């Protein structure tokens, strides 16, 4: 544990240097920026048309037009945060840069915080234009949820961070063979995240699993707001409490796997 304490550290200058490294990469590549917008935009358009179709068929959708589009955009935000964290880490592995970074004064904890922030930045670069497109194409504004949107978004960001940083540890420990976890990990919880349907739809035995996941609280809260016009503070508080736990576990997993990678000599020479 003392080793972990030493590994955490906190230098704003070093974290800024890491953010600068990733910003150089992102801002210098229009294909990377287009990719950040492309996939969520395609999904949003597809869900938008589906919602328009269903609105004419069911009173539920007609009553709360944006419930699917909002669900899709919030889910995709969480997925993009997790993916952004993992990709920022993978960029270091692909460029065989981990050795350079970890013989510098950069501490693993600072490295972790910098990739978390990059995950958030990448998500905002992608999702803000997509949310504006939803407004333009389907006359649905995610921002109509007001301050609650910030609560939902930040709660999902925290969970995306937790899964993302744990995935980084996994890839560091098991090498690029575990790379697919970066794209697949989040979808493991999609069925129980209650993005498009309430937790009550799930089999009784599966419902406790859903309530152990912060996204279920957020999406139930989102439906309560969009369908019933009620802001459920209890759900938001539940989500944040669980997120704090998952984020702490994610960090512990990352630092533990980092130490394991150090024991096994995996920091030097990993790459394509």
């Amino acid at each position, binding site marked *: 544990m003392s080793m972990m304490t*030493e590994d955490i*550290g906190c*230098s704003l*200058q*070093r974290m*800024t*240097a*890491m953010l*600068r*490294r990733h910003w*150089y*990469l992102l801002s*210098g*590549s229009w294909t990377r920026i287009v990719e950040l917008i492309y996939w969520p935009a395609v999904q949003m358009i597809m869900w938008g048309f589906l919602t328009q179709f269903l609105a004419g068929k069911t009173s539920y959708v007609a009553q709360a037009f944006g419930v699917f589009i909002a669900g899709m955009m919030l889910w995709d935000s969480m997925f993009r945060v997790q993916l952004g964290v993992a990709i920022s880490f993978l*960029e*270091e592995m692909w*460029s*065989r*840069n*981990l*050795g*350079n*970074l*970890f*013989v*510098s*004064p*950069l*501490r693993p904890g600072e490295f972790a915080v910098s990739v978390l922030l990059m995950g958030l930045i990448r998500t905002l670069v992608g999702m803000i234009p997509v949310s504006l497109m939803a407004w333009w194409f389907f006359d649905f504004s995610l921002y109509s949820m007001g301050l609650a949107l910030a609560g939902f978004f930040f709660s999902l960001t925290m969970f995306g961070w937790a899964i993302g940083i744990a995935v980084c540890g996994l890839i560091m420990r098991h090498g690029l063979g575990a790379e697919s976890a970066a794209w697949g990990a989040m979808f493991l919880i999609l069925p129980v995240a209650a993005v498009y349907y309430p937790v009550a739809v799930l089999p009784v035995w599966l419902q406790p699993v859903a309530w152990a996941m912060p996204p279920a609280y957020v999406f139930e809260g989102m439906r309560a707001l969009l369908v019933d016009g009620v802001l459920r503070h209890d759900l938001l508080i539940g989500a944040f409490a669980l997120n704090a736990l998952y984020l702490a576990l994610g960090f512990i997993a990352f630092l533990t796997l980092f*130490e394991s990678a*150090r*024991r*096994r*000599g995996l*920091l*030097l*020479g990993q*790459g394509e």
Partner: protein
Amino acid sequence: MTEQPAIAVTGLAKTYGQADSQVQAVAGIDFTVPKGSVTALLGGNGAGKTTTIAMLLGLLKPSAGSIRILDTDMLRDRHRILPRLNFSSPYVDLPHRLTVRQNLMVFAGLYAVKAAADRIATLARELDFAALLDRPAGALSAGQKTRVALAKALINQPDMLLLDEPTASLDPDTADWVRSLLEKYRAERGTTILLASHNMGEVERLCDQVLMMKQGRIVDRGTAPELISRYGRQNLEEVFLDIARGQGKAAEQKVPA
């Protein structure tokens, strides 16, 4: 009072794998490196040179032993001493899509280099790569990459440099240029340098001390002239071959084959 060595390694060992399939990469080595000296780790492939350097840098956790660098316990307080070290290795790279200047700006930030732009301009002038500053690191030739990697290694004006095969895959002219640069840098700053190399001429020219490694052990040590004389050979390459093949004086001294 005698001066503390820059590096003091005691009983350093690294074993990989489980009990039934263990591989001993480094088998309990002891050595010291005096401050301001240049020391070479010399040995064939798999001798344990890179593993030793990785342990000294904190990239690899030893199975046993202790490492003190610049009076600091590396295993306990490595973050305290890392700002005063730097390294270069063919096993790591700088991000290819960033320009040379961007890469160096990032590392200047990580090492808290003041007036980073000026420092980069100075390095570019000294290492003769000013024309490459705005080129992507991935578009450089092997020789240009070596210059830039050295610039990264010198960006924080380190008190100690650890170099893994600093002239590997370079043409003789560029390799000679790198050696001259290292000699000049050491003379100007009194930097301690530990390098792993396969190049005997380089070691003879640069190093005050040679540690001969084989199968994870230090099998002999001394200055290059001492080793050449001890083995009754003409140059360090012949000594290396004797030790690698377990022939000549190496066989008499029971250096493991």
